[in-house]
């Protein structure tokens, strides 16, 4: 026991330059083999067709076959991100400014959805939004719609609802934690000179928490672009999200070329946001959201 201790002591003291690398080695090699290697091979395969390489054939085919879905993915991601930010911000500001019990209730209720995985959200939305599901039946009983022509949700509507269901509270959560830090005295001072709630939100709160809003938006955008589960479970019509096309291409045709071309497209779509986020996190060494 004692000799073991002293050996450890010696090794830890003497090899202090090697120690961090030794500690990182297992995790890093795992990520290199199972993440970085397939990442590179996906890019290389996207430029490979049979013996041809490099070739753009896969990209041309992907664009010809899935142009509609590619544009649809961009549309859903932009719209979903925009709405998540607006609604999440509204929710957070409401929770911050109002001290009412209703505000607290709404806040803790929204917390609930952040933690649920998309596979459950997918099932919930499937049953809630079905042509004769809970929502349509309720609307029909309120005489808002006719059940013989129910609102169809297994398209962009349901997709946005499903994404917003989780992402609005997520953005609100991130933003609210920044808002809590804002000194109450700023708000009191503004109120005492007659500022309305709208002014307080627009000219005091939002500028102070801009970084949190951007991070919330970036993560929401990347999530919408990357998520396979929700569109796969929910969308029955065309167009659908690119992640679903990738699965389709691989499971039915074993066509890794086109699947990877679509994958590279998703990387590129996420890249501007992702690079911003990574620079910020790595630069400031924030171990955070």
């Amino acid at each position, binding site marked *: 026991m004692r000799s073991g201790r002293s050996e*450890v*002591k010696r090794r*830890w*003291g003497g090899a202090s330059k090697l*120690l961090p*690398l030794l*500690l*990182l080695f*297992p*995790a890093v090699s*795992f*990520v290199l083999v*199972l993440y970085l290697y397939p990442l590179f091979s*996906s890019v290389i*395969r996207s430029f490979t067709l049979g013996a041809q390489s490099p070739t753009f054939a896969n990209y041309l085919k992907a664009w010809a076959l899935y142009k509609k879905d590619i544009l649809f993915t961009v549309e859903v991601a932009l719209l979903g991100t925009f709405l998540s930010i607006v609604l999440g911000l509204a929710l957070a500001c409401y929770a911050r400014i109002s001290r009412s019990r*209703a505000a607290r209730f*709404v806040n803790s*209720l929204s*917390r609930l959805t952040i*933690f*649920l*995985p*998309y*596979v*459950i959200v997918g*099932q919930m*939305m*499937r*049953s*809630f939004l079905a042509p004769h599901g*809970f*929502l*349509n039946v*309720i609307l029909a009983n309120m005489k808002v719609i006719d*059940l013989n022509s129910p609102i169809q949700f297994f398209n962009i509507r349901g997709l946005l*609802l499903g994404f917003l*269901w989780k992402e609005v509270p*997520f953005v609100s*959560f991130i933003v609210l934690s920044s808002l809590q830090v804002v000194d109450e005295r700023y708000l009191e001072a503004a109120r005492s000179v007659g500022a309305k709630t709208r002014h307080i939100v627009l000219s005091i709160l939002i500028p102070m928490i801009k970084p949190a809003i951007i991070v919330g938006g970036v*993560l929401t955008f*990347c999530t919408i672009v*990357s*998520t*396979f589960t929700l569109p796969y479970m929910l969308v029955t019509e065309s167009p659908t999200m690119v992640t679903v096309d*990738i699965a389709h291409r*691989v499971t039915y045709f074993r066509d*890794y070329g086109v699947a*990877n071309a679509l994958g590279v497209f*998703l*990387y590129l779509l*996420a*890249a501007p946001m*992702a690079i911003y*986020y*990574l620079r910020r996190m*790595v630069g400031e060494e*924030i*171990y*955070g*959201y």
Partner: protein
Amino acid sequence: MGIRWQKPIFKALAIGLFVFIVVGPLSSVVLWSVAIKWYWPHVLPQEIGLAYWKQALGLQRDWAIAAVSIWDAFKNSMIVSIVATVITMALAIPAAYALAKLRLPLKAVFLLLFLMPKVFPQQPIFVNLLPVFTRWGLAGTLPGVMLIHILVCLLFGTWISTSAFKAIPESLEEAARSVGATRWQAFWRILMPLAAPGLLVSTVFVFVTSLTEFTGTFFLGLPFVTTLPMLLYSASGYNMQFASVLALVLLVPSLLFMVLTERIFRPEHLGSLGR
């Protein structure tokens, strides 16, 4: 003048709509899980009962009820998640300690490596691992699915653990070392006890993430490895009741996690659970 009473009404409507949108989908699966007969245009089920719950939990076997026992999938899920959690944390804690507390060459590169999977789509990775796993004989096996879960979880495990270590002031460890403690002693006697709550959050988070993991298991486990999320997915195609029961079963760990960690949970831990 009109504005004075319009405002609270608008507010009440907005809150009501919000509550409906959050609670609606939840109550829909709760109702479906106990619905024996539910035909439109009825707002509520015409006949309710626990038949699907009983069948799913293996308490009865009735060929008229389209549900199977979930215990096989539950067992698979537990084995995969427990093994994946143990290995993930064994990899993540040393890495997190190095990232948080030690001087490191190329630190930015390492940080980048652990952050990338969070913002770049992971699905193409799974797709390209399929031929590799097939070659290695891992596709469609429990060890293969465990490896994928470790990959998905490692990011969160490392990240939350790093912030747990980072939160402990440098001065405490220095004080211990200045009175003669080795790095090893300082680690076990000072750092570990203080980091324990954060590491616990990290471990539970990893466990719940693994338990609800879908995409990786879908590409590399199916059709041979059925975990609870896979069972839910296949049920959702043919039977609303059974799928709803499964959704509620899978909801439990996430909810427990939320309740357990509400006090120590911070935004930076959030990452992207369940994606």
